Structure formats: structure tokens, C-alpha cells
């Protein structure tokens, strides 16, 4: 009896060995990117609902747009209509630049709200046009308001920061979808492209200082009155002559660090303009991406980056890219995302900005 059991056990063991020798294959280690440093790629047709593949357009604008950004599921953008019988384009302007002689006053618009990143059939990140929410009315503003940036505070109050001829102004609404009323301006002069985030218990504004050709930083406790820290953050690499059009986002890394990231344009040798990134945890010391091709290496002509933080470490950027309409440069409103290997389709709702 014992012998039979022994032989049986031996046979079972051998069968176990034989049956187990079947192989499988696995992929290379997964790509991990939690820094938002890219490289970004343009959104696909599936991710934009087929709006205008393959150039990543998220809003089919007919007006000339200088900047767009997403807040509370709405696209805020400025728009200037082409004037009747526009003059020929100024040949001295660099390629891709707007010729304001061909355009009317710029105003600020807001799209209809929509879920971002979830609705596959209607496009994961695309927007329809919407009503005008702000236009120039104050003497310091001149004829145009542009470069919108909406910050929604913890109590739901939405503040629309915008640029105009005399600097940066502030409008407020009870929510991002509410009616905006101008409350202050100019809060920063000689500046454009405001971007405001809550960081370290205060509101921090980064802006393009048009007198220094670089990026400035100001702070505020109430979102209306700002104190300038500097008009010249030390973010430029050797050989860079200009920094412009910042867009900021506050992210929490997987290890719990709260990081302020700023995407901006940098102009280097031979007037090569890239979109790049700097980041800080304390507003004192900054780390600057040193890549010569920036975060958008494969996206030609991208301008005015405005980040939108999604879950799962996905960072989306709204951008403008060169586009002509009947001979007038108007810029296309596009979207890009990183990590590039992930898909925005079926991605989660955007995380609340800190």
C-alpha cells in the first residue's frame, strides 16, 4: 500500500513539473510619468470627437484666438473677428504671429460646460462655442481684452483674470458659469498672460512681464489685490532671449509633494520658440526643463500653453497653433496631453485644482 502511495506521489510531482513548463511573454516595463514634463502629443480624433484630426483641435474657432484654458469643464478663450476687407498681412511679422491690423477688438468667450475626459461619443476634450463673457469697457483696457485665465476658489467663487492694453484685470462671478463683473484693474501693469493658482495658502499669479521679456510673480490673499514679488523670475537658460505666455497648475505627486508647474514659451537661438516647463515647491527655487525641444517636441508652432490636470497623472494642455482663414492668421485651438502613451478617452474627471 505504502509503495503504491509513494509511486503515486512521485507521478503527481512529475506531472506537476511537466504541466508547469509553459511560457508566456510580458511587455517591457511600463512608462511612468508623474512630472508633467512630457513629451506631450496632440490629441487624437477619438479624443477630440473627430473635430479636426490630426491637428488636435478641441474647438473649431473662426475668430483669432490668443489663448484658451479650461476651468470647471468650460473652455474660456479670447476671440477677435476678422475685419471687413482686411489689409494684406504685414510681411515683417514672424511666421504664425497674429496681425492685429487684420482683426477687430478681442473679447472673452466661454463654451458650454461639458464633462471632460469621459464622454467618448461626443469627444473626450472638445468644446462648442459659447457666449461672450467679457469685453473691453474701461479706459485702461483699450479696445481689447484677451489671455483669459479663470481660477475657481474653494468657495466656488470664480475669478477671471485677463489682459488688456494697460495690464491685467480681474472680474468675478459666483461660479465659472456665472456672469462676470469687473472688480479690479489693472492689478499688474506692463503685463499679459496671467495665470493664477492657489499654492501654499495664497493665490499666486505668474504673468508675462512685457517690459522685461520674461515671467513675473505676484501674490494675493483675496484674489483682487496682488503684490509683485518679481518681474523677472530666473527661469531662462543660457541663450534664451525671451520667456512668455505662462500657464500654471498645482499638482500633487505620487509621493505627496505639492508642486507648482509653469508651462511657458521660451525663445532661444535663431528665434526658435519652444514650449517648456519649470517647477517649484517653495516659489524660491525653480527647476527648469533643459530639453532643447521642450515639452512639445512634435507639435510645431504651439503657443500659449494652459495646463489642465486630470487624474492618473495625465496633464492636458490647451494650445494655439498656426492656422489661416482666408489669408488671415487666426490660430487653431488645440489640445495635447502627456503621458503620450495614455489615452484621454475613458479617462477620469479632472482633479480639483489646489
Amino acid at each position, binding site marked *: 500500500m505504502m509503495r503504491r502511495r509513494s509511486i503515486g506521489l512521485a507521478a503527481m510531482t512529475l506531472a506537476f513539473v511537466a504541466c508547469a513548463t509553459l511560457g508566456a511573454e510580458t511587455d517591457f516595463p511600463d512608462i*511612468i510619468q*508623474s*512630472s508633467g514634463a512630457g513629451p506631450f502629443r496632440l490629441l487624437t480624433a477619438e479624443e477630440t470627437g473627430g473635430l479636426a484630426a490630426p491637428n488636435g483641435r478641441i474647438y473649431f474657432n473662426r475668430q483669432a484666438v490668443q489663448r484658451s484654458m479650461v476651468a470647471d469643464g468650460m473652455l474660456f478663450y479670447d476671440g477677435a473677428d476678422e475685419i471687413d476687407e482686411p489689409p494684406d498681412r504685414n510681411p515683417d511679422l514672424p511666421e504664425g504671429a497674429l496681425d492685429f491690423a487684420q482683426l477687430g477688438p478681442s473679447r472673452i468667450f466661454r463654451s458650454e460646460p461639458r464633462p471632460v475626459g469621459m464622454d467618448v461619443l461626443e469627444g473626450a476634450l472638445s468644446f462648442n462655442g459659447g457666449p461672450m463673457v467679457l469685453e473691453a469697457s474701461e479706459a485702461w483696457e483699450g479696445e481689447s481684452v484677451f489671455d483669459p485665465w479663470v481660477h475657481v476658489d474653494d468657495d466656488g467663487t470664480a475669478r477671471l483674470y485677463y489682459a488688456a492694453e494697460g495690464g491685467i484685470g480681474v472680474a468675478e462671478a459666483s461660479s465659472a458659469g456665472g456672469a462676470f463683473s469687473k472688480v479690479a484693474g489693472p492689478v499688474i501693469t506692463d503685463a499679459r498672460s496671467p495665470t493664477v493658482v492657489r499654492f501654499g495658502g495664497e493665490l499666486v499669479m505668474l504673468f508675462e512681464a512685457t517690459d522685461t521679456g520674461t515671467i513675473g510673480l505676484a501674490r494675493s490673499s483675496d484674489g483682487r489685490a496682488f503684490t509683485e514679488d518679481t518681474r523677472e523670475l530666473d527661469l531662462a537658460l543660457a541663450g534664451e532671449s525671451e520667456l512668455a505666455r505662462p500657464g500654471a497648475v498645482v499638482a500633487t505627486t505620487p509621493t505627496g509633494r505639492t508642486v507648482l508647474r509653469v508651462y511657458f514659451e521660451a525663445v532661444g537661438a535663431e528665434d526658435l520658440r519652444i514650449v517648456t516647463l519649470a517647477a517649484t515647491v517653495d516659489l524660491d527655487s525653480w527647476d527648469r526643463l533643459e530639453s532643447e525641444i521642450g515639452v512639445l517636441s512634435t507639435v510645431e508652432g504651439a503657443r500659449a500653453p494652459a495646463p489642465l490636470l486630470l487624474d492618473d497623472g495625465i496633464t492636458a494642455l490647451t494650445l494655439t497653433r498656426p492656422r489661416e482663414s482666408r489669408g488671415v492668421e487666426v490660430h487653431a485651438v488645440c489640445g495635447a496631453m502627456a503621458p503620450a502613451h495614455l489615452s484621454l478617452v475613458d479617462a477620469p474627471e479632472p482633479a480639483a485644482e489646489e
Partner: protein
Amino acid sequence: MVSRVAAALVALWVALVANRAEATPPDTHGLFSRSISLGGAVTADVEDSSANYYNPAGLVRSGELRLTVGYLSVSPYLNINDERSSVERHGAMVVGLVAPATFGNARLAFGLALHLPDQRLARTRSAVVTRPRWEMYDTRPGRIYLATNIAVSPAPWLTIGAGITFQSPSDLTLDIRGDAHATSPDSMSRLEHQFAGDLTSIRYPQAGIQIHPHEKFSFGVAYRGEFELRNRIVALADANIIGIGADPIPLQFSLVSDTTSMFGPQQVSVGAVFDPTSWLHLAFELTWYDYSKHPSLIADQEILLSADPPPGLGITIPDEITSLPPLPLNLHDTFVPRVGIEITAARTEAYTLQTRLGYVYENSPFPAQTGTLNFVDNDKHTITAGVGLQLTDLEPTLPGSLSIDVHAIYSYLPEREHIKDSLVDPVGDYRSDGHLFGVGATLEVAFE
């Protein structure tokens, strides 16, 4: 005198055939069920086929001819940022042999152990620095381990053993020649290529000693040498680019990549066992791993590109193509404690039933990955358990015994944070943690 000659033969054999030293898949997952279930704390008294890895001195201890076959499987559940990483299950068939002999009055034994992965014979994957990789579990266990040893017992209380282990580096060459059409590469190109692959062999030594001065005590020391597996990949292209302009554009490309694909540190294990009663067996062990000598795993690459396109085509050939230098890994040495307990639950003339428990703490030699590199590793707490049934009343079918051992392991890798020095690092901060689950079985036939 004969004993001295035998010991000298062992030393001479090692000196002649072992030119380098390396480490192995059993370093990660162990070898054979009994030893694994005791947490690997067996250096002081191992005597089965696993002595080929743990301490070759044990081969001569029992004086029995042993044939062993088994299988082990370890499933990793390793996570980065709470997402499971692509680290495959490790499964391997293991085979062992212990063959006793006599040389005059001296007792000798020869041993062999083979660890044969079931998914592939060897695996090499280049390290992509921007992709965090579980360095200890991704590729290291996935290769053949073959060890041969010889042991001698010059005195009843002393056994000495030594041997070598084999590993295989690779040397691959791809040579492309001909004409490549720039715009219609599929239909208009005329290219021929040659591929050469050379899997050579390197060897490294192991040696050990066991001292058993009293029936209740035994001590052991084992040494396993260092090894480094280098992979060399050469890609050569000597071609003409056609389809651009009127004349062919000569193109020469050369890539030489020389990398360390695996390194095993030299290591020393010191163990002791104590049998306070006939049914209780206690084992302790401490192993030193010389990980501080670990070379860089980043390939040392030399890339040359030469072409002379006619002016006007707008093609610019870079003067120099650079790659990441072989950055140091900055590993540190580790000391790994092991504890094993074996309880004889039942013993009759027909069988012996034993249960086993073990614990191992392995502190990771890898630092937190705060810079450019992303070789992920965590500390590891491992609990092992096993059962062994030895059947001893098998004559005349089997003049000896039949042992069936099974084991299970559970490893816990507590969370570790990798906080990058640069906030704009291409990868960024991440957390790593995980678990390993493993089972295995061993069947051993021992002839008296």
C-alpha cells in the same frame, strides 16, 4: 594523507576552471523546497541537492546518492504608483544530483544543480532609464543556473566543498549592406543583412565548509563569487541611400553597445544550527552581499554616423551622436539575516513528517531612485513555510527513501518613495511596493 590530496584536488579544480565569479537565480528565489521553506538558513547543515547552491560542503554529509527534481513558481504583484508593473511570473524546473564516492579513506561527493526557467532559457532586456524597472525581479531570475561541485570530508566533523557555476553572456552582430530607397523602401531597396549571435560561457566559483562538532550543533560558511554578464551588440550599416537626388548618398552607421546585463555580487554566508531536542531544529544565518561593486547597467555606446548628402537637400548630419554615459548605480552592501525552524511532527519506521518555517529580511542594496536612473527595488520581508514527508520503508521497490517537500513563500515589499531631485525629471516621483507569492515542490530519491 589521502584526505589532504582530495582537499588539494578540490582547491586545484576551483583554481583551474573558475576564472570569474558571479550570482544566480537562486539568489532571488532559492533552490529546492526544504531549503526555501527554512528561509535559506541551511548553510550550516544542508545535505541535499540544494547544497550545490547553499554550501557545496554539504554534498558529502549524508553519503547517499540523491536524485532530486522539483518545480517552483513565484508570482510578483509589484506596483508603482498603485499600478501593477509588468513583471512576469517566474517558474522553473529544478534538478539536482548528489553522488557519493570514496577516495581511499576519504569520503567524496559530486553534485550538480540545474535551475531551468520554464519561460525562456535566458532573458536580457536593455535598461530604458526613463522606465522604472524592478531590477531584481524583471530579468535576473529568468536564466539557466548550472552549478557543479565536489566535496570531501577529511574528518568526521568536517566537510569541505567547492565548485563552479556557469552563466552565458551574449555577443550579437547585425551587418546591413546594399541600397536603401528613401521614398519607396519596401519595393525599391536592395539590402542584405547578416546576423551573428554568440552565447559564450563564463564561470565563477563557490566554496564552503561545514563543521559539526556535536550532534546538536553544526556550523557552516559558504562563499559565492562575483559575476558580471556583459552583453555586446554591434550594428553596422554600409549602404547607399537612393531616391534622393541624382546620385546615391553613401551612408555608414556603426553602433557598438556594451552593457552589463546582470551582476551577481560576491557573498559570504555564515550559519549555525541547533537541535535542542530530537524534534526541534533551529537555524540562523547571516549573508553578506558585496553589492557596492555593482557596475552600471547603462550601456556604454559608441555611435558613428557618416554620410555626405549633396548640398541643397536640407539634410544635416550631426557631428556627434551622444548617449547616456554609464552612470553609477551607487548600490551598498547588504547583510541579510535568515531564520529557520523545523519541527519533526511524526517519526515512524515508515515515514517522517516535518513542518518548517522561515523568515528572511533583505534590505535593498539599491538607493531610492532620485536621479536619472530608475532601477526600482524595495526592502523585502519573506515568510516561508513548508512540509516534508520522507518515506523510508520502500524496499524492495526502492532501497532508500523518497522525500516529498512542498513550500510556500510570501514576500512583503513595504512602500518606498522615489522623490526626484529635479521637479522636471522626465519620470517624476513615484512609489513602489508589492508582494510576491510562491509555491513549489521537490521530489527526492535517496539511495543508501
